[in-house]
């Protein structure tokens, strides 16, 4: 008789107890940062500046986007050079809500770029965006539907590999051009900025910022758990099989379309949420977020951290953006050299990224010990 416990195989543990503890501790530590900003005096040694809080909040949005990208690239082998589009779409959807509350007390006031075009009324796609619930629905729905449609047609005709990458790049490029136009109705070149209120709260007050920080942290942790549950499931194994040999999988009798479409759409939605959380914290969204350069930078976050691991993209996003913040402050003219070298060196010498490096070092140590 077959003695293998099938349920154990299909229902693997989400995380080991040690990993759960680590995750909990890290989450709690990061969650304390805004508290240190709100409750402590600036002179206190543990005080965290508002700048640092908003910076880390921003990094967490990037980490969420990187995690989403890693789901498709690291696990299903689909390299998207257009995730910046989903990020920006989520941001724009949320931005529409914020733009409907530009008045002193958060009341509705026509945005300047519309009065400039002498529009009498909001265009149809701005309908109901004054309600937060509808705007948040759009945050999920717009990137999701676009990704689903695009993915359906692309995967159905078996566009893959570099072709898919280049087409996603063209997609985000086209969208950027579209959003640059004033007539598109999204503020053209300048995009959305000068937000005042979110859900009636002053968007610039430290407590609102702390709340946004916590929401972002929660979203990141939930996304991590969700991604983990996807990759640990049977579905996740099919995805990895697609990554490793799609044609062999097809010969066995699977149709990869549904699997790819699922993970692609999920990734786009996560990316849209990241963008939606990014906008109120940074205070601006413009078509520059859709530039091909931004999307490809997301890829290097994942590659630096380590693709095919879930913690990797988070580490990578934090590392690369930390470097970027420091370099653009200290040596602005050298940042592009560093970024370029990072692209070259990581692909040549660190194909598994930082996490892969740590793992192989740990493994070697274990081998020495044994």
């Amino acid at each position, binding site marked *: 008789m077959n003695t293998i416990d099938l349920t154990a195989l299909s229902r693997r543990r989400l995380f080991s107890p040690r990993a759960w503890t680590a995750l909990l501790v890290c989450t709690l530590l990061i969650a304390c940062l805004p508290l240190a900003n709100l409750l402590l005096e600036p002179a206190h040694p543990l005080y965290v500046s508002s700048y640092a809080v908003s910076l880390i909040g921003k990094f967490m949005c990037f980490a969420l986007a990187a995690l989403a990208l890693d789901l498709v690239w690291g696990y299903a082998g689909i390299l998207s050079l257009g995730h910046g589009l989903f990020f920006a779409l989520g941001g724009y959807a949320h931005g529409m809500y914020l733009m409907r509350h530009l008045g002193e007390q958060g009341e509705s006031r026509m945005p300047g770029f519309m009065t400039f075009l002498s529009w009498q009324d909001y265009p149809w796609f701005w309908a109901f965006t004054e309600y937060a619930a509808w705007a948040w629905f759009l945050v999920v729905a717009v990137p999701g539907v676009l990704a689903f449609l695009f993915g359906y047609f692309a995967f159905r005709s078996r566009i893959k590999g*570099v072709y898919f990458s*280049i087409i996603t790049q*063209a997609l985000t490029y086209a969208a950027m051009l579209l959003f640059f136009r004033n007539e598109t109705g999204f503020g053209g070149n300048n995009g959305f900025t000068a937000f005042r209120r979110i859900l009636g709260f002053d968007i610039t007050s430290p407590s609102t910022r702390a709340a946004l920080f916590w929401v972002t942290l929660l979203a990141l942790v939930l996304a991590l758990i969700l991604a983990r549950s996807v990759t640990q499931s049977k579905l996740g194994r099919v995805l990895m099989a697609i990554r490793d040999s799609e044609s062999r999988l097809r010969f066995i009798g699977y149709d990869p379309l549904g699997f790819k479409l699922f993970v692609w759409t999920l990734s786009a939605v996560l990316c849209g949420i990241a963008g939606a959380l990014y906008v109120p914290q940074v205070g601006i969204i413009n078509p520059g977020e859709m530039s091909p350069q931004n999307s490809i930078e997301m890829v290097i976050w994942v590659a630096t951290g380590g693709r095919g691991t879930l913690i990797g993209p988070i580490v990578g996003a934090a590392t690369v953006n930390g470097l970027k913040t420091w370099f653009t402050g200290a040596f602005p003219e050298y940042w*592009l050299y560093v970024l*370029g070298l990072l692209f*070259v060196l990581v*692909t040549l010498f660190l194909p598994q990224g930082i996490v892969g490096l740590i793992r192989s070092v740990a493994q070697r140590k274990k081998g020495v010990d044994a």
Partner: protein
Amino acid sequence: MPTSAHSPLFLLYVPFRAFIFALVVMWMTPGAAQAAPAEPLDPAIIARLADSRTEAKLAAIAALGQSANPLASQTLEALLAGVLNVVAPDTVLIDTGAGRGLNVASHTEQIMPPEAQPIMVNNRLRRAIQSALAGSRLFSESVATRLAAARGLQNSTDLEHLPLLEKALKNEAQADVRRALEVAEANLALQSPDADVRRDAAVRLGQTRSAAFRSTLVRIAEPRPDGTYAETDESVRAAAASAVRMIENHQQIVALTGHLYFGLSLGSVLLLAALGLAITFGLMGVINMAHGELLMIGAYTTWLTQTLFRQWFPEWMNWYVVAALPAAFLITACVGMVLERTVIRWLYGRPLETLLATWGISLILMQTVRTLFGAQNVEVSNPVWMSGGFTVLGGLVLTYNRLIIIVFSLFVVALVWVLLNRTRLGLFIRAITQNRRMADCVGVPTGRVDMLAFGLGSGIAGLAGVALSQLGNVGPDLGRAYIVDSFMVVVLGGVGQLAGTVIAAFGLGTINKFIEPYSGAVLAKIMILVLIVLVVQRRPQGLFAPRGRSVE
């Protein structure tokens, strides 16, 4: 005279030739009288000219303007230039320099007497002279002047010019001047009280196919806002309406030709940008995201060559572009080969990794150029033989630089084709494309061929950069604008297909320029991208890929 050698039709449809011809005629026949022999002027007019009162002078000027005598326009011009001198009430001389003057009464030259006084011209007189000259120039001895005068009168609404035009028509022998006169006359005849004359005029204006008369004709053919017509005769209205249609048809042809030309021009640029990619991506499977930066380096090489020439060989300035071609090819080929040896060779067979690494390289190259030459655009000028253009279909200017680049792109395609299909290196490249391991086994030095092939692709990017520098701005971001488009061309054309690349490039360029007027440049670009995505849906291997049997 060489006129008879050319048929009138020929002259009409090749205005450039006509212009050259007019110049030749002017140069060859300075004194040859053609329409009317130079007769002395009416003494009554001369007396009025010599009169000190402005009113008398005005009358004389008006009379001169009505005169068909070539001497009349000469006199008016002299008056305007301030070289018309009064000696006596019946003697007026045009100062011809060297102390001599032309007597307009007797049409003879004589010595300028010391008591000669130049006639002063005030603003009122000047305006009158200019108006009169417009008429009298119709009888000038020079064909070019008559033609210019007739064209100048084509938009006149001054009915006084009508009898002059008719007189000029009677005398005129030159075909193109006659046509210009007829048009001018027809334009004025539209105001005639006789309906037949008006109808005839409308038909003739329609035959000019010139947009300048469209609004006039529309005003006749269309009802006014209150429903009545400015033109009472229905047959005239119908003639005007059909004339408007003729003009509009012609304008459409001009517009289409323009789109085609600019489309081909854009296509040739895309082709040049994509050709290098067709080799590195199509044949070697390397996604070179730094290709755009190689274009940029080619353009900067052109700029450097221009600076060097300006410094050391200013007399050869016109040919710096020719010198820039090999320089750009060599420099970008070297950059490409260094890249291949240091980075890309480790990544063969891993296209996604190549993509990321070359993107990194593109950032480094861009920043290097920024550091070396600054972030601002640099100034690259067209040599004389590439600037300017010629006019076709009466109003469409085809610029030489675009024309030369179209030809150049075809030349480069031919060069690449010969290199790939008729040389040993091309044979090796194709062998490696088909089966790298087998090629290696039979002794093809794969490493060196890879390097050379990548160098070739990069060098062609350099040539494209030279061409781009002649069309637009040269700055560190130059390559970024072309990288997405050139990948689209290669993807659409089918990987590894030179012919596919050519057709895709010209096709995309032309379609783009045909969509642009209806939707604007940005929407045209978006529509093209959507179109490509749709096409690639149907034919994932590109439009012109050979049908194979392999799975991957």
